[in-house]
């Protein structure tokens, strides 16, 4: 054991990082608003930077937590079928294939939604008890001058319903290991850093046209990733070919 990190190549995480970066143009819609609201602190640039870093750290922690949980869940599902072997190392068993199919389909659905298709699917984000109430009450945190407030805000922000996050959590689950799940979400979260930090600093610099392009780019990434994941589930490929496909997107 202790060899999982080696199994998924760095390039795979780079793809995720890039996808996170592209996807963050979508984030600007909602989370960007929060980042803007966090805004500039009158106590100076250093305090502003610190607040934004803390906020994003909080957000990243939530993502990573979800990633590690999803990975562990994926592993539990796979090993329940007797094969606890890491992904892409041995022939995939049925459970892992199924996981890949489900995750792939989810990602494709999310990806299509970015192109404005499947509008009704959007409602998936609104299930549960009062997501909007939460979003409203969390604004309280923004005005607090406490150092801990941005971190708390980031943590909650990370759990707000977001199709982009769901898509990557599905991806994390399909890797079927806690560590790789963690790394997927870490890469994704870091990918969103530039845009979110930029929002804090620059405000609404991006024109709607560019934002729209960014959203399409994100949709494209997710669609491709979804197709690859789906392919891993349905195509009778050996591990090397899957490997090549998974990393071939760069």
């Amino acid at each position: 054991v202790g060899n999982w990190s080696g199994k998924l190549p760095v390039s795979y995480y780079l793809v995720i990082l890039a996808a996170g970066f592209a996807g963050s143009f979508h984030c600007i819609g909602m989370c960007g608003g929060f980042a803007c609201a966090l805004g500039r602190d009158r106590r100076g640039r250093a305090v502003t930077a610190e607040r934004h870093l803390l906020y994003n750290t909080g957000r990243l922690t939530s993502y990573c937590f979800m990633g590690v949980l999803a990975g562990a869940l994926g592993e539990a599902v796979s090993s329940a079928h007797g094969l606890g072997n890491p992904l892409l190392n041995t022939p995939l068993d049925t459970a892992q294939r199924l996981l890949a199919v489900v995750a792939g389909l989810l990602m494709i659905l999310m990806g299509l939604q970015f192109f404005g298709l499947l509008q009704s699917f959007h409602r998936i984000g609104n299930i549960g008890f009062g997501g909007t109430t939460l979003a409203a009450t969390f604004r309280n945190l923004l005005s607090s001058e406490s150092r801990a407030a941005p971190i708390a805000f980031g943590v909650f922000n990370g759990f707000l319903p977001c199709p982009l996050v769901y898509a990557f959590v599905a991806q994390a689950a399909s890797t079927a290991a806690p560590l790789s799940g963690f790394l997927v979400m870490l890469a994704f979260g870091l990918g969103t850093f530039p845009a979110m930090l930029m929002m804090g600093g620059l405000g609404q610099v991006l024109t709607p046209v560019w934002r729209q392009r960014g959203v399409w780019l994100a949709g494209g990434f997710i669609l491709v990733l979804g197709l690859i994941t789906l392919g891993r589930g349905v195509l009778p490929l050996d591990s090397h070919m899957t490997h090549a496909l998974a990393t071939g997107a760069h």
Partner: protein
Amino acid sequence: MTQGANHLCSHCSLPIGIRSMERTLNGEECVFCCYGCCIAYQVKIGRSEEWDAAWLLIRFGVGAFLTMNIMLISLLLYGGTFGGADAWLLPWIHVLLWAFATPALVILGEPYVRETWIQARQGRITASALVVLGVGAAYAYSVFATIEGSEQVYFDTATMVLMLFTLGSYIEAAGRAKAARDLEPLLAAESECATVTDGGAETKRPVRDIATGMVVKLKPGERVPVDGVVVEGESHADEAVITGESRQIAKGVGSPVIAGSMNLDGPLLIQCTGAGSATRWAQICRSVREALSRRSPIQRLADRVVGISVPVVLILGALTVAYWAQTMPFDRALLIGLAVLVVACPCAVGLASPLATSLGIGRLARSGCLLRDAGTLEALARARLIAFDKTGTLTSGRPRIVGIESDGAGVEEILARAAALERHSEHGLARAVTVAAAKRGIAPMDAGKVRAVPGRGIQGEIDGALVAAGNGALMRDLGFTLVPDLAARAQAMEESGYSVIYLGWAGRVHGVMSLDDTLHAEARATVEALRQLGLHVVLLTGDLAPAARRMAAMAGIEEVQAGLTPEAKQEALTQYRAKHEIVAMVGDGLNDGPVLAKADVGIAVGSATDLARETAALVLPKDGLWILPWAIAVARKGWSTTLTNLMWAFGYNLIALVLAMAGLLQPVLAAAVMASSSLILVVNSLRLSQIPDPALLESDRQAAAEPGSLRHGVAVPRVASAAVERG
């Protein structure tokens, strides 16, 4: 009993249990039924300038941040990431976990420790003590293990259990408040504000300060705060809370509006006709508040179970640890003990009954049906027999003409002459005559020198000739002759319980009108609906047997006991109780108070004062007999929800407890399952607030739309026709 307000949770409006939480938030005294409500309330009322709420969120956010980091690292640890060559890192990781866990425990555990301490000082052990003990033990062991340098630490379990408990109670409380949100307007009625306009100036005033004559401005979608008359504007109103019937009623200048009804679509200016605290709406709200704060027998039982379960669980936990420690390492045994403590937290048992009954009471109140207490809901649901009192309950108390016997004159002439006299009278029977004439389009003749003869009837002159309408004595006094045939028919009518009016002119009696009380339009359909609910319906009345049987036949009631004194009615109820266990009695609440009080569920129609006098346990809206089957259906649903809730809560706790004691349930899983069990109760109870509004049957709706056609009028001058008409 102290003031009702202190018995309801500030957040979810449900009755608080025996162990409430009291807090002062932003200078306001608040009482909560559970920790979850305390959190949810602060989140809800949170404004940026209110430090309490923001501080709470920051604490949870930071707690979650630390907990997630601990969980993240621990999951990677369990996955073996730091095995093999990286094993030297392990002690350092444990120290890191310790560093994360300590502030997390302080932040998240503080409310539990505080609660335990407050209760312990009063000599009580509560569910929070279970959490504190379990989590504290896991933490203490882990600190010990870290210092010792052993393989396993359980910081993740300690913090995650706390996190899940906190999160679970928050989500559950938020859901509960959502379920109970319909109760809110019922509880806030008198403290609500209304906009009073005085010339140009507008001021907000609490409803209880509004006095007669003030002009109140009302926006669309607002609740009418006071009884009054529209002085400006046009709109529609929904008066379901008063009449039980949910439909739009047009309001224009001069229309009366009732406090508690909803102004739907137009702005209105209304002039107040009574004090804000004296409306039926205010009375409804007071009675709902009162009903909610009284605990039902089943709730007392549940509370008692909760009370003894905590010490029992503590003992079980200790025994479990002692048992498993014999066969496995102490830390594993401790963990199993922790799972036992966490999983047996009896929150759900305490929640099961008040949640369902409160929602049921609230649902009924929103359609104008008021319950005295939670126990009534149970009794109403379980009632197997309903006894009706006749006068004013099944009948309207307004007589109408059901038959006209004539001798030497047409029916039309009789009505025309009778109406000529009776339209000068205020007597109830007289009104029946004029209504009957008007109904058939007969114009009253012109009568002069009309005068009432006290205790006899009325007399006057038409075309110079003496005409009289009244009882037999009046006819004899005036020397009017009565042919034997007509006399026999009149006597037969009187013996059958009809009221009779003789009409005579030109020296002889020409007609005999028989009058009968009117059956409520909806009586038959109501009785039928009750029968379909499996209830045995009987009629208990003080009236003469023939009249009672006739009414019963028209209403479709088969079992009748007539000529009963109030004492005899009580006696009859006692006999029925022996056979049917739980009996309900419907009365008008005026004459039969003691009888209603004697029944298991006394049901009064339209008289809310009986609720205050405790004679009736359920009060229906005025003219609201038709709503009774619906009310019983709601009560049954509320009762069955209470039962399923309790079964689930008990069953779940027992099964989970056994699993935990057998070592099959991990503490973190136990905490998650614990939180979800309460949530299931909320979801199960939510169905209660989704019960549709009561609906009039289509035939009744038509009847109600044409007043006079059934309730007050006369259709055909034959006795039998009344029954035909009903069918």
